């Protein structure tokens, strides 16, 4: 964490990790006794037979809440299902958390192998939605929103994290293979591969994609920022990437596809960057579903009351409340902060110091916007003060003198506006 220097208030300058010097080998985390997997739940229905308590599952087996399709994930272990508990994720997403007692020896479910001959979007949906780096492949088939462009991004979206870049650099052939498979499964030809240019200065291999470099300065690798750099516009209110025909996928997910199709098995290990209390980095590889407490213990990171555990990086991650939380397919990093290093938000109003204005990379008039958002005037914030130019980098909150949780207000505003639009559409 950079504190304000004694003199001046220069813009904070952060750079993404480049992995250009040291190239670490991930440390393997032992198979835990139980893993927890999160399955998207269909509210109001009972779980199907295959995931009832007591059912046996194999590694690589497709698990879904109801028997006839529905969102699925792939089991990362062999073992016996013990329990399910309802779990509410960010912004009210409903999951069932399934506890599985693991067995030492993996038995692989071979149903995927027969599908490797001819890649289809359905295979991607069924077997890769919960694979490392995962993406929501069902968006590729929405007839109302045809996808024209796929963007594979190779950089990490937050500071200090080097997971995605590591995968891209160390498994480049798998990623290339994955790009080919994506192309043939979807029939989409326009594929962009985006990565911080400095990380690939000496790279001269051939990619079957349109390779674009982005600056290494934060926040150039924020998804919204990448979108802007590629297409020269921002998403408008109510728009998602898919609405504009763009599908985002991370290099890690593409690598998993490439690897799976050449080996016949969907990978079940997730690469993570663990950042300990003194911000040293440890690259580990763990089964999806491993409780993070065990990983932290392995690295001798002690946890005390009032510490903070964060999934993701320091600028855009999310804090979790328990060390029992499992590693998920999109958990790129775990950041542990000591209680003494935490600077808490305050409930002061904006004092109009203007630090945010001088910091925002997209020139959002944060000082005005925050006044509207604090009052719940979300639509006015969007209409008058450029809510939708924000790329959600968090730099304004980082410098805010009044320590207002600005990014939280911004995300809440976008979420509420999206919900209102949805409700209106339903009423029509």
């Amino acid at each position, binding site marked *: 964490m*950079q*504190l*304000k220097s*004694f*003199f*001046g*208030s*220069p813009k904070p300058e952060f750079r993404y990790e480049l992995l250009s010097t040291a190239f670490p080998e991930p440390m393997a985390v032992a198979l835990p006794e139980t893993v927890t997997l999160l399955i998207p739940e269909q509210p109001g229905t009972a779980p199907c037979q295959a995931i009832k308590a007591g059912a046996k599952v194999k590694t690589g087996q497709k698990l879904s809440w109801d028997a006839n399709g529905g969102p699925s994930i792939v089991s990362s272990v062999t073992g016996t299902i013990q329990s399910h508990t309802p779990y509410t994720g960010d912004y009210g997403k409903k999951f069932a958390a399934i506890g599985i007692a693991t067995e030492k020896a993996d038995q692989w479910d071979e149903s995927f192998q027969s599908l490797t001959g001819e890649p289809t979007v359905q295979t991607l949906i069924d077997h890769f939605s919960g694979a490392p780096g995962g993406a929501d492949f069902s968006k590729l088939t929405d007839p109302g929103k045809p996808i024209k462009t796929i963007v594979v991004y190779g950089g990490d979206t937050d500071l200090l994290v080097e997971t995605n870049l590591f995968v891209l650099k160390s498994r480049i052939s798998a990623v290339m293979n994955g790009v080919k498979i994506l192309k043939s499964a979807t029939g989409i030809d326009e594929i962009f591969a985006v990565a911080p240019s400095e990380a690939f200065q000496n790279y001269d291999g051939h990619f079957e994609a349109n390779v674009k470099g982005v600056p290494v300065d934060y926040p150039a690798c924020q998804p919204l920022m990448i979108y*802007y750099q590629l297409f020269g*516009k*921002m998403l408008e209110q109510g728009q998602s990437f898919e609405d504009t025909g763009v599908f985002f996928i991370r290099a890690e997910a593409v690598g998993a596809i490439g690897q799976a199709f050449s080996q016949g098995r969907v990978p079940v290990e997730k690469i993570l960057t663990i950042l300990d209390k003194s911000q040293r980095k440890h690259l580990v590889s763990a089964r999806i579903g491993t409780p993070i*407490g065990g990983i932290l213990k392995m690295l001798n990171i002690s*946890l*005390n*009351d*009032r*510490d*903070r555990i*964060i999934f993701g990086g*320091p*600028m*855009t991650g*999310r*804090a*979790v*409340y328990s*060390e*029992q939380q499992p590693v998920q397919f999109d958990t790129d990093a775990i*950041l542990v902060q000591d209680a003494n290093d935490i*600077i*808490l938000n*305050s409930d*002061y*109003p*904006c*004092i*109009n*110091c*203007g*630090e945010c*204005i001088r910091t925002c*990379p*997209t*020139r959002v*008039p944060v*000082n005005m916007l925050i006044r509207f958002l604090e009052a719940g005037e979300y639509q006015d914030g969007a209409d008058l003060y*450029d809510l*939708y*130019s924000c*790329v959600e980098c968090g730099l304004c*909150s*980082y*410098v*805010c*003198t*009044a*320590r207002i*949780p600005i*990014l939280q207000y911004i*995300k809440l505003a976008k979420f509420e506006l999206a919900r209102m639009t949805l409700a209106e559409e339903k009423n029509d």
Partner: protein
Amino acid sequence: MISQKKFVVSHAPFWHNGSGVPERHFNAIIATAPAVLMGLGYFGISAVAALCLSVATAIGWEWLFCLISKRESTVADGQAILIGLIFGMLLPATAPWWLVVTGTFLAIVVGKQLFGGIGATPFHPAVLSVAILTASWKMYMDIDAQLVNLNFDFTPYHPLVAAKAFGSQAISDISICDLMIGKQIGGIGTTCGLALILGGVYLILRGYVRWQIPVSFIAGLCITAALFHLANPEKYAGPIFHLFAGYTLFAAFFLITDDSSSPVNHIPMLIYGALGGVITMLIRNVGTDADGIIFAVLLINICNPLIDKIRPKAVGKVA
């Protein structure tokens, strides 16, 4: 297995550069120190009394207001102290106690809290208070009249009043050096230009004051003064005189730079400052008030929300 440990959860980002509201105010207070010390040296024990009373009552009003409105006390953030201090520095050293108490009431309760508290004040609270007092008790805010019984080893009349009444001839015996080191009649903490510059530069270097505002203010003031002076050197004093006389430098670094009532975008900051300088000179040379700063500051405070609408287009916006 239920985790026994209680972790802190909050929203991203999880880093902060450590800046905070109190530190801003306390640094401004530190920056006033040289000017305050010089002022106390020149004006003596009555200045000490006025200044202490001003700060103490400002704190008192703030505390009382929070108590009555059942809010958590905000005294600790230092803003009330700063406002009390700035108000005190603007006063003549012999201001009667009731004037000080009324003034801090106007500054803290009316100027700050009734407008919505920190961050929501359209005018600099201390300036607003001084303006109201000047309109209500002109006699007591008249620096010449107030200081008439004190003995000084320098010109014992307000340089701006003299310049206004008798033209630049009247001030020809006031040396600029005297003005710079504070040998002039004025508010307790506003006379010593060099000390004010020292404090201002400190605040700019530390990033608490945005340089655009004081620099454009001084530029606007000097250029306007120079034009007047060139047009009629007999009648109008030169820019350097105006820069170091009266409240000019105090306003440049401590009044117009108030966060809440000044713009935050680049071009608006320049316009705001320059406008302040020009208005000040117009009041001094054409209007009726000798100093003019107080009303100039209120005027640009009013313009601030409008000026600050000039801002760069956000990324991705076409219209």
